């Protein structure tokens, strides 16, 4: 009997270890996870936590003091700038380690290592896109430059100094949740981060969709649905600005008409991963002639997926050489958007197409040579090893052509049944040191310094805005943009003929730019940079409406104060609806509406055109417009088994404004001929049933409908770490670009007076720890459209009230 009892006890013990200590039964090993001395309780940071600390660390050249203010923003005071980067690395790791690793694991196609086989396709996609190859090229350029290498080395050492102090109890909670350990940081990981950012901002492409659409629709209809320039374009560089003649006329290769513009077959590839096309931003700078203080004011708000931890970490770097303040990327040294004593700088995305595909014909299954200029050209091969948690490694062979990596072939995309393969030509693969730009901007004193700094930037193309205490304002759309003949790169190009390769890049001095324009302001909002007189072919993914609102408002503003700029960043005016509503009103057949339908019509017509949180008109308007869009386009887009890419929303509006006999109005699936009135009316009827449902659920008010949510980086699997139900306005095409889970990830207004007046906010918090009160404490301020007064610290401020804690870093020899 006693043996039986002992055996039962032993088995029970074993069972407990198995259930509570492994991930075999429960998704989380609860024993380890809830253990009070090493589990999640250790991540519950006391609300009175004292962040003051005295640290003795190797690899420092001198003493560094860090003053943490009441919002947990570190103000790093170092003599030596590399010491400042060391401490920046240490603090990035202290507050954001998991996020930093996660982002670079994603960049490198290594998510399967801790999430298992469900990420294999994602990882393969990253590898085949050449993300690792691109990061290697970036690293070699960064390390060839002495000052960049020194900055990166210091930054990496700082991160690793923090990692080496970590014990299991102090691990960020996500490691405990997913069950893995951080590895050492390296300069290569910083390079990977720059490529992840590049993918986010310059990784969007429509080449396959356009190739298919052109084949199916023909040239005329293609132009109608996917026009190059919107009628209502308000370009970054004002219309009428003269451009110099292009360096050379760039002509399509002979024969392009038949093999490129009129190819015989079509291509279908399901591109499962694409960056969000809403990734964009607003920025503007107004000169002293328009401000009350007589000094320029610079504003910038980058629109990205809203996430916790935030993509941004606020920081000040005070060294002998410069004193910069702003937001940094956990993963890179330096301030990325911000200001110093003399200048302020910011960015919006250019949205230019810098990513093309070439059709490759391999000699055989080995994929080691391909047909190019009438002979078999050797392809390099790179074997990608993807480690998978709980399974065997996946090996993937990727061929590298003269264009770049062969991203799609039969082995990756099952819909490719023939031996066709597609190589990717992407500026992101080219060798360059973009970090150098930021390191130089941090210390830039004037326009010349800024102009010198931005030369180092090749991708992702940005509208780089500038304002200085001296009174200059400027904007450059900067990157290396390929020289293209008209139509080049819209569609998949032949890969057997060198004449289809890019012929070089547009010289920097010809990039659209503006310095102290007569208008007294410069601005950008992801719209096309220039009108049709710009002498180069510049396809891209451009926004139309935010720019219209911003430019119209700025045109009429004088005596501007920082508060005016804050108000403009939070402006909810819907200029698209202003242009579209008259069409709806004009064509709706009022006599055919029932009471309910008339109610929503009334709601739309009496709406004040503001996307404010409590407005119902905006929800009704969008339901109606979307339904009209579907009425008109869906039959045409779904006529083949592979649907066509959706035309931009300006396309329908401008087509209807131009021509009410727009040829896509008729529904090809019915025998009768629909006209615009019928479609507008039927759209309202369809929208009504949807709106009635929404109203029943009390979701008609815009903020309730939109339900602004800041997700944790692991999205729905860590929903309790997210903040949802944030009641704010805005939307797509609105200056306040807040959509459901996307929008202004940092709002900044800098007035270049002395002392500088700086205001900013971001929807997150400085700590990446969901157990810290600093995890999401900025969100409410952000949602209300309010700002924090930034504490731009100088040496004499060490005893200021804002300083709450002090960390001292002492060098150990």
């Amino acid at each position, binding site marked *: 009997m006693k043996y039986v009892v002992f055996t039962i006890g032993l088995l029970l013990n074993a069972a407990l270890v198995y259930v509570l200590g492994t991930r075999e039964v429960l998704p989380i090993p609860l024993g380890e996870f809830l*253990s009070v001395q090493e589990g999640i309780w250790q991540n519950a940071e006391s609300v009175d936590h004292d962040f003051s600390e005295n640290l003795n660390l190797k690899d420092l050249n001198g003493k560094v003091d860090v003053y943490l203010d009441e919002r947990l923003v570190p103000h790093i005071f170092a003599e030596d700038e590399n010491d400042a980067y060391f401490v920046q690395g240490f603090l990035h790791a202290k507050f954001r380690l998991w996020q930093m690793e996660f982002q670079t694991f994603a960049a490198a196609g290594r998510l399967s290592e801790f999430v298992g086989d469900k990420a294999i396709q994602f990882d393969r996609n990253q590898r085949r896109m050449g993300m690792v190859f691109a990061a290697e090229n970036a690293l070699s350029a960064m390390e060839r430059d002495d000052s960049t290498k020194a900055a990166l080395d210091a930054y990496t050492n700082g991160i690793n100094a923090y990692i080496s102090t970590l014990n299991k109890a102090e691990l960020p909670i996500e490691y405990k949740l997913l069950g893995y350990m951080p590895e050492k940081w390296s300069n290569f990981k910083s390079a990977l981060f720059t490529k992840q950012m590049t993918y986010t901002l310059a990784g969007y492409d429509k080449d396959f969709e356009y190739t298919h659409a052109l084949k199916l629709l023909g040239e005329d209809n293609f132009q109608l649905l996917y026009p190059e320039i919107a009628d209502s374009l308000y370009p970054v560089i004002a219309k009428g600005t003269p451009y110099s003649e292009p360096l050379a006329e760039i002509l399509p290769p002979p024969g392009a008409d038949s093999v490129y513009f009129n190819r015989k077959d079509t291509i279908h590839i399901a591109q499962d991963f694409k960056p969000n096309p809403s990734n964009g931003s607003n920025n503007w700078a107004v000169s002293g002639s328009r401000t009350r203080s007589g000094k320029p004011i610079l504003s910038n708000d980058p629109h990205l997926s809203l996430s916790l931890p935030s993509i941004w970490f606020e920081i000040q770097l005070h060294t002998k050489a410069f004193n910069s303040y702003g937001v940094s990327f956990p993963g890179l040294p330096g301030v990325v958007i911000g200001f110093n004593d003399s200048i302020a700088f910011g960015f919006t995305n250019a949205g230019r197409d810098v990513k093309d595909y070439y059709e490759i014909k391999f000699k055989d299954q080995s994929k080691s040579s391909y047909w190019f200029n009438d002979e078999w050209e050797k392809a390099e091969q790179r074997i990608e090893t993807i480690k998978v948690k709980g399974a065997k490694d996946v090996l993937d062979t990727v061929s590298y052509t003269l264009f770049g990596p062969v991203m799609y072939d039969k082995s990756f995309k099952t819909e490719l049944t023939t031996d066709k393969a597609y190589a990717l030509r992407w500026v992101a693969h080219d060798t360059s040191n973009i970090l150098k730009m930021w390191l130089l901007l941090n210390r830039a004193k004037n326009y010349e310094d800024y102009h010198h700094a931005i030369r180092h930037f090749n991708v992702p193309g940005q509208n780089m805005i500038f304002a200085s205490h001296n009174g200059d304002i400027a904007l450059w759309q900067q990157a290396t943009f390929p020289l293209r003949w008209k139509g080049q790169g819209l569609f998949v190009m032949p890969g057997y003929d060198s004449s289809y390769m890019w012929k070089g890049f547009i010289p920097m001095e010809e990039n659209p730019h503006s310095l102290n324009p007569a208008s007294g302001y410069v601005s950008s909002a992801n719209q096309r940079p220039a009108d049709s007189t710009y002498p180069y072919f510049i396809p891209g993914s451009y926004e139309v409406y935010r720019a219209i609102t911003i430019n119209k408002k700025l045109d009429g503003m004088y005596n501007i104060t920082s508060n005016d700029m804050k108000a403009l960043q939070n402006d909810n005016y819907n200029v698209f609806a202003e242009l579209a509503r008259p069409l709806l009103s004009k064509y709706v057949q009022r006599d055919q509406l029932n009471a309910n339908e008339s109610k929503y019509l009334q709601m739309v017509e009496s709406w004040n055109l503001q996307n404010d949180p409590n407005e119902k008109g905006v929800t009704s308007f969008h339901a109606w417009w979307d339904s009209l869009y579907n009425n008109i386009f869906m039959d045409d887009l779904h006529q083949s088994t592979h649907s066509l890419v959706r035309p931009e929303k300006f396309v329908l509006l401008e087509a209807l404004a131009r021509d009410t006999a727009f040829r896509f109005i008729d529904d090809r699936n019915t025998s009768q001929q629909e006209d615009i009135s019928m479609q507008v009316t039927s759209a309202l009827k369809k929208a009504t049933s949807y709106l009635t449902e929404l109203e029943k659920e009390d979701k008609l008010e815009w903020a309730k409908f939109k339900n602004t949510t800041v997700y944790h980086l692991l999205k729905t699997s860590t929903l309790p770490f997210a903040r949802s139900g944030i009641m704010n306005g805005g939307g797509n095409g609105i200056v306040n670009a807040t959509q459901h889970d996307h929008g202004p990830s940092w709002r900044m207004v800098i007035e270049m007076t002395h002392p500088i007046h700086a205001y900013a906010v971001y929807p997150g918090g400085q700590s990446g720890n969901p157990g810290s009160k600093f995890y999401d404490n900025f969100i409410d301020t952000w949602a209300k459209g309010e700002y924090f007064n930034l504490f731009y610290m100088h040496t004499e401020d060490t005893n200021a009230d804002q300083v709450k804690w002090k960390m001292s870093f002492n060098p150990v020899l």
Partner: protein
Amino acid sequence: MKFLVSIIISALLSYALGLFLPWWSVMIVGLCIGFFIPQKRIMCFLSVFIGVALFWGCFAFFISNANDHILAKRVAVLVIKKSDPMLLVLTTAMIGGISAGVAAFTGRSLAILFKK
């Protein structure tokens, strides 16, 4: 008396071992107390269960209280699908207590094997 002693020792020892060893050190504590402190098996289980559950529960509560339960509210949803910090504290106490208690039961059973 033995009962009270095992409660106190199991709590103190769990804390001490926990400084160096992973969570399953509470099971070592349970095994040892069960082996060395002669009580009825059920009493072994109960005393060690109470000792470790009290230690884990109180420790978790004090940490969470100082944290205004910010973390517990979030993690509770993940683990028990309910934003109830106290329930998460209780779950923590149960997991520590049961693990150690079962080990104590086993430790005593082992000791009984050696008794002639």
